[in-house]
């Protein structure tokens, strides 16, 4: 329909003219008509129709109600409610199944909706969030996209605010990657703080973003170079119940050293927020006092380090702002520093899109825990599907149960009840059941939400309950659902001729059995698929945990390396090689001393330092390497990991050719490759690779050996081409292969050596196998969710089946009686009655098998190392479902078969 001659929804109009007082009708219709046209013009036809409904429903107010509605016979309605209520109580067991199934379906739907809302609602709590954008930089080398990431140079944001009129405000955010030790000098308490919790930002940060301060002034908190703002949680951790304002924290190591004064305490950051940090310092601190000294070299147009946020004026055109930003980058391109053939363009990403719609960048995003839009869509579909199944089952059940009330309907009819009144009677009952279920569903959701939150590792709260929109939709859904699910039984029953209902022959058939059977087949299909899915997920996880990794991570203790060295040389510019070399040399000497001292104990097998340990991939360096002398274009991507002397031995890697590192080697000039890297470089065999030179930066480095492929990362990912570079001083993580001696003793020894060599550092350690297996957490959570859904699906499918069986048992009461009189045994009748359901199940199974095969394999393709689909993936779910279904059917059919034929036949 075109916008021009749009007309308001017909039924809304009918409703309005039914209840509105006659005198008001003309003016109200006129007003609503004008409003409707207005919304059509400014928004959309759909919005206008929704709005019209809203306006009409909002006219249901005492002053506007007309005679027609005030004269409704409320006495009759009261009787309907009363009869409905009595019915619920008379058939307790039936009502229980009815309400139980329906409320469970609704409850699950609610829980999922709340979860989906939580995911969709990320980063929307800032004022004018729809005007805040993050700059994404996209690189193209010779016109081919070569990388992207949410980091811009120091100057870009600042300059943008200055020269682009549409930019209202900018904020830079620097997520530190180096962890540090933080000390409360009063109590001498010190903790290792992870890099990503320590951020730096412009002083305007707390003004653009809505992170309320519990203490302190948001306009000045980040002004002084030595200021620090911490979260409430950190305030508790370091100061307990004392007031932290104005107190000092000493930061050692990390991106910036020094004492800081607390000038603000943030309320703990909301969970639906991509900016997660615990310590916030002014950006100035980073480049004046910390290792960010190079940001201002080249006028601040080099070093893409900063998450940059722009607040754009309301009427601005985003594409044109992007073009202006591109222009800025182009104008300030550094001749001779930036490669000529690389072009950088910008994209402004709305902050509300960061969580679900940003996808992956080639430079890892500092926004952690990003969600997945397609997962969310699947969740929504599942939620409504479950609700739908709940209603279908309810229709089946209530139709079956109402057959027992044929006599009641017959009597009502013969004493003059109109068809309309009967329909209203049944719909009233349906509304009753739906309302009760709806309220129960909220209870169920309240219980289930923390369970779901726990299994996906997020804290969820039932926030929708506090919104009016929720209650509005809640009642719309309940009443709509009640109407839909009540109409069918209502019309079926009220349309019978009274004579057939009062007579004793109840061989009436209501509605299409085919449709119901189809739905049952469908429900079982879903159940089988879900059970099979659960089984597959668990099998894959077990497979991944049990598979050989090509290295030994058991009994591996990893100590987190020192964050700073007392009295060591300081680095004030993270790119100044002279400073860095001096610091490295000192750090290396200390580490060698530590290694020697710590290994001198019977409980320690071997020790090695490394920049990262297996399982850590976020901070891994991606480098482009080629064989020494090969042309420029042949560089390929490799993973580079700096490792210490005994890395191969400590981790039990298998050497295929050449040698490991030895003490004669100098740092950074020797590497080991894995098989995959040998292949990527194009060497014919591991032996061929040994002693070859490869280009690293400008200089050649030598391959000393080749190790067998091993799984640095979880088994989801394939082997990557890896280059292990010798760095005797690498001590970010120190791995110990422990001997047989008891753990306490080894730990005590390591700790005391650590304390003497690295004073004022915190001592933290973990066991590698637990840490490594944490990579499968998401899969385990996925499995738990799947399990929950399968239980639910089975439960709902069983209710559906039960409803169908009860229904047909009622219909066949007489037949069973006659068969029994003629000598049929109980077993025979049970088999006879169950047979057709077995047939339905078989149909579901036949359809399920190819589906399981298809989806199962599709899912398994996510994993580089995977188990295979076997006959067990089909057999186990089928058996599980078969047993449960047979039990459900058998229970009911057996009861019918055992019934005394006299009861069913005596009335004839």
């Amino acid at each position, binding site marked *: 329909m075109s916008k021009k001659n749009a007309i308001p929804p017909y039924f809304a109009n009918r409703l309005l003219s039914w209840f509105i007082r006659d005198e*008001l009708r*003309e003016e109200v219709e006129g007003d609503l*008509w004008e*409003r409707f*046209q207005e919304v059509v013009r400014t928004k959309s036809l759909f919005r206008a129709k929704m709005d019209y409904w*809203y306006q009409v429903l*909002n006219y249901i107010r005492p002053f506007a109600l007309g005679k027609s509605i005030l004269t409704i016979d409320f006495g009759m309605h009261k009787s309907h409610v009363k009869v409905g209520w009595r019915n619920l109580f008379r058939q307790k067991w039936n009502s229980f199944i009815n309400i139980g199934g329906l409320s469970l379906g609704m409850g699950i739907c609610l829980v999922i909706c709340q979860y989906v809302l939580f995911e969709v609602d990320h980063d929307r709590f800032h004022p004018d969030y729809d005007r805040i954008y993050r700059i994404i930089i996209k690189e193209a080398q010779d016109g081919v996209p070569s990388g992207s990431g949410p980091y811009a140079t120091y100057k870009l944001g600042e300059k943008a605010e200055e020269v682009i009129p549409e930019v209202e405000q900018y904020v830079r955010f620097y997520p530190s990657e180096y962890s540090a030790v933080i000390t409360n000098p009063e109590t001498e308490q010190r903790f290792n703080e992870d890099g990503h919790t320590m951020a730096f930002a412009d002083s305007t940060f707390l003004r653009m973003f809505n992170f309320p301060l519990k203490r302190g002034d948001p306009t000045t908190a980040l002004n002084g170079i030595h200021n620090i703002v911490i979260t409430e949680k950190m305030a508790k951790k370091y100061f307990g119940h004392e007031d932290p304002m104005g107190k000092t924290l000493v930061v050692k190591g990390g991106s910036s050293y020094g004492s800081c004064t607390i000038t603000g305490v943030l309320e703990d950051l909301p969970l639906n927020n991509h900016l997660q940090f615990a310590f916030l310092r002014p950006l100035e601190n980073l480049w004046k006092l910390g290792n960010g000294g190079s940001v201002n070299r080249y006028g601040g147009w080099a070093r893409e380090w900063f998450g940059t946020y722009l607040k754009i004026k309301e009427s601005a055109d985003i594409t044109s702002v992007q073009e202006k930003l591109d222009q800025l980058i182009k104008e300030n391109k550094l001749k001779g520093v930036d490669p000529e053939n690389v072009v950088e363009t910008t994209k402004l990403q709305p902050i509300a899109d960061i969580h679900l719609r940003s996808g992956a960048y080639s430079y890892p995003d500092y926004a952690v825990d990003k969600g997945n839009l397609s997962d969310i869509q699947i969740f929504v579909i599942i939620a409504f599907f479950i609700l739908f199944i709940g209603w279908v089952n309810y229709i089946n059940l209530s139709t079956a149960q109402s057959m027992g009330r044929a006599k009641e309907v017959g009597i009502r009819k013969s004493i003059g009840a109109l068809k309309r009144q009967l329909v209203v009677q049944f719909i009233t009952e349906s509304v009753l059941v739906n309302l009760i279920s709806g309220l129960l569903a909220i209870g169920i959701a309240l219980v289930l939400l923390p369970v779901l939150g726990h299994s996906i590792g997020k804290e969820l709260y039932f926030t929708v309950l506090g919104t009016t929109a929720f209650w509005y939709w809640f009642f719309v859904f309940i009443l709509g659902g009640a109407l839909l699910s009540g109409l069918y039984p209502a019309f079926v029953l009220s349309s019978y001729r009274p004579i057939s209902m009062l007579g004793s022959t109840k061989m009436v058939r209501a509605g299409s059995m085919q449709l119901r059977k189809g739905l049952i087949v469908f429900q079982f299909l879903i159940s089988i698929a879900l059970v099979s899915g659960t089984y597959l997920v668990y099998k894959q996880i077990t497979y991944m945990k049990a598979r050989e990794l090509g290295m030994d991570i058991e009994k591996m203790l990893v100590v987190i390396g020192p964050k700073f060295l007392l009295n060591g040389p300081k680095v004030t510019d993270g790119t100044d090689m002279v400073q860095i070399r001096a610091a490295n040399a000192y750090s290396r000497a200390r580490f060698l001393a530590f290694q020697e001292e710590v290994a001198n104990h019977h409980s320690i097998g071997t020790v090695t330092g490394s920049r990262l340990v297996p399982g850590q991939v976020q901070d891994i360096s991606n480098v482009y390497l080629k064989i020494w002398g090969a042309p420029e274009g042949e560089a390929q991507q490799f993973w580079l990991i700096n490792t210490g002397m005994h890395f191969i031995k400590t981790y039990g890697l298998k050497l295929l050719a050449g040698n490991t590192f030895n003490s004669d080697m100098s740092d950074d000039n020797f590497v080991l490759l894995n098989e995959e890297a040998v292949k990527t470089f194009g060497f014919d065999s591991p032996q061929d690779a040994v002693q070859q030179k490869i280009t690293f930066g400008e200089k050649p480095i030598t391959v000393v050996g080749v190790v067998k492929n091993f799984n640095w990362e979880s088994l989801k990912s394939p082997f990557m081409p890896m280059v292990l570079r010798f760095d005797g001083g690498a001590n970010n993580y120190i791995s110990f292969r422990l001997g047989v001696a008891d753990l306490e003793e080894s730990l005590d020894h390591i700790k005391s050596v650590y304390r003497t060599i690295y004073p004022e550092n915190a001592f933290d350690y973990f066991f590698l196998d637990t840490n490594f297996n944490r990579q499968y957490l998401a899969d385990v959570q996925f499995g738990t969710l799947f399990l929950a859904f399968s239980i639910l699906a089975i439960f709902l499918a069983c209710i559906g089946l039960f409803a169908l069986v009860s229904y047909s048992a009622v219909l066949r009461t007489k037949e069973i009686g006659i068969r029994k009189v003629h000598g049929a045994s109980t077993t025979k009748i049970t088999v006879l009655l169950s047979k057709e359901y077995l047939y339905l199940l078989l149909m579901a199974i036949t359809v399920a098998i190819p589906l399981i095969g298809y989806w199962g394999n599709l899912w398994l393709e996510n994993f580089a190392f995977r188990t295979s689909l076997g006959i067990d993936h089909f057999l186990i779910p089928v058996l599980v479902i078969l047993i449960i279904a047979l039990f459900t059917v058998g229970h009911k059919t057996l009861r019918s078969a055992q019934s005394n034929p006299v009861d069913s036949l005596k009335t004839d």
Partner: protein
Amino acid sequence: MKDTRLGEFEEIILLLVGILEERAYAFQIAEEFESQTGKSVSIGATHSTLDRLCKKGFLTSKLGKPTAVRGGRRKRIYTISASGERALIASRDLRTSLWNQFPAFSKFSPNLYAL
């Protein structure tokens, strides 16, 4: 006379009727309310308040001419009655007197009275 006090919503509606003059009918008032306060209100809620204000005697109303925009339907135009004006003035006087007694504001921003 019935209750002559004004609720906040009633007061705003009454003022809007005064502002809109010839164009003061339910739809227009609801639109104006939204654009002036930034809060949304349904036509039904506005209408019910207008109806209540008529019953209190603060407003009078008459049916206007039919217009094409409204599919040929007439609209009800509201006008403030004398007692409606009195109620508004009483309400404003009360506020002004309260503001005058509020030391923190009278010291710094005398302009606030103008609001």
